[in-house]
């Protein structure tokens, strides 16, 4: 294909976008005002070109994180135990650990090497450890561990940051998922090599040794990675299922129907123009990988994994104890019904809903509306901010509305910040 033909093809593809009327100027002005209101003078300073990437982390810290009276600067009660937030300014080489209640800065962090920026981040189940990818200027990817150490007298914790030794991903690699195990000695990542090939890797967090690397091949890894309490790594990939009207669901799989009809079952419908009856189906296959089994180079993810028959349904992010999977959906718009984690898109239409599925039965245990269509503004994050280890306690935000959901029961809360949509673009939608 010559350059002219390719340019023409780009032009045709882009024509509807280039000629699209811009949204009313007031929309931009409102967003700008929201930014200024949220970040104050800092957002308008010379360092304003930042995107706030945040993972709500929190609690425990050896008992130092007693529920704070400072919680809830607003008129609502605060959720208990929530204390610290990892904040990464993803467009600049700065990150912070902040008190989520007051916004006070516990520590300001810089990447472990010069001319490096922070990338995707993950939090451990104890919320004492953050693992963050770093992007040096040469295009490679390295990692650093940020540990929150409880003070002996129960005072303010200290923060220690150190590079994960020896782990350097080739230039151009994109890390698309990152998780830390509960023992905080391993981490797994899904990455896309410069050639476009996806792979799954598990590393020793302490010494950086590679425990296993499996090419994903043609597998479509579709749900967030999750370490189970026993140390196994839970993965989910999609396979094409027969298009006939098939109601049987195999053990360890979840059918993903592309029909645009609104349904309690998960859907990956992005085909509004297609005929529902002829729409292809995807089937999600739950598998587990045991990183303790020695990895043999050349082995495959299929060969080295086992069906996970204990998980009857996994859509969204798995709770730390593996008992629940949690997903966010925009109820009347099947095109956005399944998200990769706990956030809701901005396509509009319908209320935002969080669904919690029991891993044991596959049934939806709670279906909790967290916001109306008018709350999904695009400017503010909509979805799960934080969840307890058993998944029964959630902190959610949709637009400017923040809530705590305990066993399906909703209470309005107010955190120090209302998280912008950009706050969760570089991190897992929520961290444990």
């Amino acid at each position: 294909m010559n350059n002219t033909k390719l340019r023409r093809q780009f032009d045709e593809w882009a024509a509807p976008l280039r000629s699209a009327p811009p949204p009313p100027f007031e929309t931009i002005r409102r967003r700008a005002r929201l930014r200024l209101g949220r970040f104050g003078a800092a957002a308008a300073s010379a360092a304003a070109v930042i995107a706030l990437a945040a993972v709500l982390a929190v609690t425990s810290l050896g008992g130092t994180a007693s529920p704070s009276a400072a919680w809830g600067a607003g008129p609502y009660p605060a959720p208990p135990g929530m204390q610290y937030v990892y904040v990464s300014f993803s467009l600049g080489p700065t990150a912070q650990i902040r008190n989520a209640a007051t916004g006070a800065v516990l520590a300001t962090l810089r990447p472990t090497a010069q001319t490096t920026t922070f990338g995707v981040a993950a939090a451990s189940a104890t919320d004492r450890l953050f693992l963050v990818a770093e992007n040096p200027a040469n295009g490679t990817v390295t990692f650093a561990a940020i540990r929150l150490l409880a003070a002996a007298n129960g005072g303010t914790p200290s923060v220690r940051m150190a590079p994960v030794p020896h782990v350097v991903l080739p230039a151009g690699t994109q890390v698309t998922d990152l998780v830390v195990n509960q023992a905080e000695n391993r981490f797994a990542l899904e990455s896309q090599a410069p050639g476009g090939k996806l792979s799954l890797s598990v590393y020793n967090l302490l010494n950086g040794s590679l425990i296993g690397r499996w090419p994903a091949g043609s597998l479509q890894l579709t749900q967030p990675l999750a370490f189970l309490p026993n140390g196994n790594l839970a993965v989910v990939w999609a396979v094409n299922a027969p298009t006939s009207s098939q109601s049987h669901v195999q053990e360890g799989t979840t059918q993903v129907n592309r029909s645009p009809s609104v349904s309690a079952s998960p859907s990956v419908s992005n085909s509004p123009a297609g005929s529902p009856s002829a729409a292809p189906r995807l089937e999600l296959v739950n598998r587990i990988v045991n990183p303790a089994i020695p990895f043999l180079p050349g082995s495959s993810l299929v060969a080295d994994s086992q069906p996970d028959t204990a998980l009857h349904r996994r859509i969204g992010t798995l709770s730390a104890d593996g008992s629940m999977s949690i997903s966010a959906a925009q109820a009347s718009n099947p095109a956005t019904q399944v998200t990769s984690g706990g956030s809701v898109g901005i396509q509009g239409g319908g209320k935002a809903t969080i669904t919690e599925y029991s891993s044991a039965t596959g049934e939806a245990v709670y279906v909790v509306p967290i916001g109306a269509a008018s709350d999904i503004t695009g400017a503010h994050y909509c979805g799960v901010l934080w969840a307890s280890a058993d998944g029964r306690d959630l902190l959610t935000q949709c637009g400017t509305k923040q809530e705590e959901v305990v066993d399906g029961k909703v209470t309005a809360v107010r955190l120090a910040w209302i998280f912008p949509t950009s706050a969760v673009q570089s991190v897992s939608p929520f961290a444990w």
Partner: protein
Amino acid sequence: MLGSSDDFREFYEASYGRTLAMVAGLVGGRAEAEDVTQEAFARALARWSLLRGYERPDAWVRKVALRLAIDTGRRHRRRLATVVRLAGQRPPTDAEPADDLRFSPLGAALAELPLRERQVLVLHYLADLPVDVIARELSLPPGTVKTRLGAGRRHLEERLSQHPEAVGQ
């Protein structure tokens, strides 16, 4: 600072579509592209008093949008991977839904490219920037940009050839 500055409005209306197209080439979906583009312009408005003095404020917006798009792309990559696979299963007679750019052969092919190639292709073909300007904006040597552009074209062609209806449109 956030007053309805006429010159910003003019700048915004003139450059929104072009920026949107560029961002869409990176993130794949129209809704995500609109969110990123609006965010970039909101940031520009917040500091317009400074930017208005720039010779090329559009370059500033482009840079911000590019970075935001990369972050958004990371977040959506997993979901995109599934959707991109589905693109090949769509009957060729189906009309392309206006808000699902990633279903188009070019959109699907772009989404499969590594970011560094997609970035230079988008800047060259959608933002209409010459190689030397791309090199300056990405802080890369021009030779590297040419190499990535060549590799991107080649990989794009390979992927488009898997969608015969796209070739020779």
